[in-house]
């Protein structure tokens, strides 16, 4: 990690109290000149629409490069996260105090796994097809 005078881009956080407090202690928090914070504390009373609006706002902001979101919050707005395919801002799903990380729910890892499984299935089907053709050569039946 370099000590710098130049300005970079931000890491934003959407998550429960402990996640936000922790990462803000790490130094990612900012309230800019327009008084827009780059973090949002989500509790059990926070409406899903508010989480969704905040996520969309962070995606639109050009000063944010990474969005950290608790996986349980990401589950609430899965359709919006799945629709976000651009590499920047990178959306990282992180665990929370009450919900451990589950790789099977992660948007990107799920896409990668599906792509890999598809390739394996196609390769298996091709192998079976060619060995099947080898077993029953039409010329043998004549």
């Amino acid at each position: 990690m370099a000590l710098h005078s130049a300005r970079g881009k931000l890491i934003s956080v959407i998550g429960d109290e402990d996640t936000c407090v922790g990462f803000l202690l790490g130094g990612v928090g900012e309230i800019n000149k327009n008084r827009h914070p780059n973090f949002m504390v989500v509790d059990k009373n926070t409406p899903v629409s508010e989480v969704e609006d905040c996520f969309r706002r962070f995606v639109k902001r050009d000063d944010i490069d990474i969005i950290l979101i608790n996986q349980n919050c990401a589950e609430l707005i899965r359709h919006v996260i799945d629709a976000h395919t651009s590499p920047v801002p990178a959306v990282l799903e992180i665990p929370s105090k009450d919900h451990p990380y589950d790789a099977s729910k992660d948007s990107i890892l799920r896409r990668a796994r599906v792509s890999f499984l598809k390739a394996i299935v196609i390769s298996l089907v091709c192998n079976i097809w060619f060995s099947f053709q080898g077993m029953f050569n039409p010329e043998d039946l004549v």
Partner: protein
Amino acid sequence: MPTTKENIGNLLDALYLEMLDLIEQQTVCRVNIERLMNNGQLMLAKTRYIQGSQTICSAQLPTENSNTFSALCEVVQQQNDTKISNVEFTSIRHTVDKEKEFVEPMQWFTSLPPSSLRSASELFKKCLDFVLESANIQRELIAVMKHIETLKRHKEITI
């Protein structure tokens, strides 16, 4: 772009292997993030136990009505030709300087931070390093998947 069907097949195999490797790296990185976050949250709980439950809560966090301040930890994108995505995130950390609006976050919670709060802060700082590593792996994974899709389309045209 490779021309023959065999070349495309070989390249696809290499990309699938790379993808598997990246998935493994991502899993290891996420385990580290989870471990550091759990330890950090344990330290926050310890601080609450020592200083009282209201010391560390979201009510202490700055709001839209608070003074403006800048992030101490930021990210920059750097060109890296060894990567498939050609870029990677690196972090920059600013020193605390109130005149330039770089404030110490621990001061929001208490003027005399206990050692447990300092430990929590250090653990979350370390966690941010893994967050950047994870973001780089994720970016690479997306680039590999894009390449695979492009090659598949190219293979269909070649055949």
